[in-house]
């Protein structure tokens, strides 16, 4: 296996009395799309800041592209933090050149890349405008361009799609995936598990400062083992209330996701429904969603509901 893009081992970080990250091991394979998921306040941003050597861990080691000296790898990293700003008084082009230079580019190269990037997002005619004169959506484009201007081999995006202008989401996804296809590694954090499920090859789930599980999405799902049954019905839902057969039910409004007790037969549940005269319009065996797995694992790990923060996890 090639050198991982990021390798964290035994990372601990406390802020005063509060533990932000507890004993975190994490390996991001080179060239992969890696999702760091978990509710707000779980420790995602702190983990990312430690990976990028913005803050030091209390203990544990960080390697980026096999090097323990993250500083030497700065030029290969493109980082878009959750809180992202611009210098209001600078012109668009000066801003992009400045950030290119900070990532180690020469001024002339940075200018050429900035002009190319502005053309790609359709802002060429705004290049001499001050940043403060831009709309929110345009400013977001500049922030994104500044992150990928130096063609980083590792893109780290903290909650990249939250608060975005809807038109920009697809544009940015396209631009990031383009980089990834050219060989870059993509790590992003999100509290929207569905986002990660659609995009990622690998996920790492964090809750209450601890890793809950990680791995390839397929493997995570396979390891979770049991399948779930997605059921859409009209009428009496009493058939779900059979403790001997049904382990748990998640109501999604349009349909419910049902997990049976070990050894339970889906056919038996269907028979109960038919007996009660419930109309079934969908009855499908599905893989458990990442969200289901996450909540189950977090609960198993003994985390309180606040740690899992259902609101954040479910809000899609």
């Amino acid at each position, binding site marked *: 296996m090639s050198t991982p893009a990021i390798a964290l081992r035994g990372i601990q970080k406390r802020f005063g009395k509060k533990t932000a990250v507890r004993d975190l091991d994490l390996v991001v394979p080179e060239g992969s799309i890696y999702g760091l998921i978990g509710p707000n306040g779980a420790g995602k941003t702190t983990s990312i800041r430690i990976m990028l050597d*913005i*803050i030091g861990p209390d203990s544990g080691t960080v390697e980026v592209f096999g090097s323990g000296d993250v500083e030497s790898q700065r030029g290969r990293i493109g980082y878009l*933090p959750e809180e*992202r*700003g611009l210098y209001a008084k*600078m012109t668009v082009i000066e801003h992009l050149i400045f950030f290119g230079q*900070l990532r180690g580019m020469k001024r002339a190269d940075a200018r050429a890349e900035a002009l190319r990037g502005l053309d790609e997002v359709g802002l060429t005619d705004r290049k001499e405008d001050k940043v403060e004169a831009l709309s929110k959506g345009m400013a977001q484009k500049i922030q994104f361009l500044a992150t990928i201007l130096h063609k980083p081999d590792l893109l780290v995006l903290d909650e990249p799609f939250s608060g975005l202008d809807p038109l920009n989401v697809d544009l940015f996804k396209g631009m990031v995936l383009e980089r990834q296809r050219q060989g870059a590694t993509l790590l992003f954090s999100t509290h929207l598990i569905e986002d990660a499920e659609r995009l990622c090859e690998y996920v790492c789930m964090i809750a209450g400062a601890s890793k809950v599980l990680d791995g390839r999405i397929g493997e995570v799902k396979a390891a979770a083992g049991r399948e779930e049954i997605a059921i859409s019905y009209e009428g009496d839902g009493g058939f779900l209330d059979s403790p001997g057969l049904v382990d748990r039910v998640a109501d999604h409004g349009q349909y419910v996701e049902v997990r049976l007790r070990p050894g339970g037969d889906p056919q038996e549940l269907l028979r109960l429904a038919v007996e009660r005269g419930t109309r079934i319009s969908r009855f499908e065996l599905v893989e458990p969603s990442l969200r289901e797995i996450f909540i189950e694992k977090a609960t198993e790990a003994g985390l309180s509901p606040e740690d899992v923060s259902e609101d954040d996890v479910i809000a899609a």
Partner: protein
Amino acid sequence: MNPFTPKVRAVMRREFMQRVKTKWFLITTLGLPVLMVGMFVLVGLFIASSQDQEETVSVGVIDPTGRVADFLVEELLADSVLASRVAELDGATEQEVRAALGDSDYDHFFRLPEDVVDAPARDRGQARIFATNNVLPTTEADLRNGLRRALLRARLSESGLENVDAEQLLRTTPIGVVNVTDTGAGRSQDIFQAISFAIAFLFYMVLLIYGQMIIRSIIEEKASDIVEVMVSSLRPWELMLGKIIGVGAVGIAQIGVWALVLTVATVFGLGTAATSLAELGIDVTAFAIPWGTVGAVLAFLVLGYLLYAGMFAGAGATISNETDAQQVAFPVTMLIIVPFIAVQGVIGSPNAPWAVVMSIVPFFSPLVMPSRLLVTNVPLWQSALSLAMLAAFVLLAAWIAGRIYRVGVLMKGQRANLPEVIRWVRHG
């Protein structure tokens, strides 16, 4: 290792360009010299016009003794005071003189006492100027000087000496103080005290203004959420150094423009300036400051700026909004105000023990030592010790500020308290 990495240079460039392009910079940099030149021109015009329209003052001389009046009228006419003797009032009382003034064409009566020539040791009479309006200071001076010369001539003539040039007899020579330096060159004291104070004042202003600018620049980065991208791209100390040097360069540019304007103005006005100074008995060549002193003063100013700027940066990193800025800047500001106040005493007594101590102690030395260097001969060991300690403190302050900065720039909301800041410094 060269601390001026390409990233530091990029930050310096940004900080410099952003500030130089502002209206504030344009107004203060170009506005101040324009204001100063304008003021000089105005004052010049005023003086010129007041000379043109100078009124001739008419004075009636009343001399009961009759022994001085003729000499006095002669001397006053030489100073273009329209004087003449009013003999009919010689015997008049003060009351009558007052009454007569209103009816006469004279601006003033100048009445001498009976004992004006003899001038006994005690209980001398007083010469009085009677006036309906204010007496111009120039007129009063003319009368005083004229009387002195007239009395001299009157007394000399009574002892048998006629037709003496009293002006020539009274002429003295100007006095200048010369400090003999190690090199044997003389220095005039006053002008160096003035230069010394001017430099201290300018440096004091620069420190306060640009220190605030550094704090504001740090807060701005926090407030606009840009600081995290910054510290993910370069080390915090690189960001801090770039800021300090970039903002400092703005100050140098500004002072440079002022110096340029001053030089141009001096070159154009040099002829006049040199002549008028020579008239005052001041030799322009005596102002030459030895290059060694210039170099030492510059070294203290540069290191001093770095020391205070580093402290301002450290203070700025502990807060995230403007309202706290004054509060955290206060201790640093005090460290600048105290030596500045001291400078005024140091210039007067540059070798007093407390002045010597203050010129060596870091925090005070950047302001106090240049003042001493300019007005006195500072022993080499003192300047060397002071400079070495200042350099050490610059490094220490940079290290501490860097640690605070590293943790502080990502802190938001509440201002960090002192124990917290100490923890940052200890653990980074």
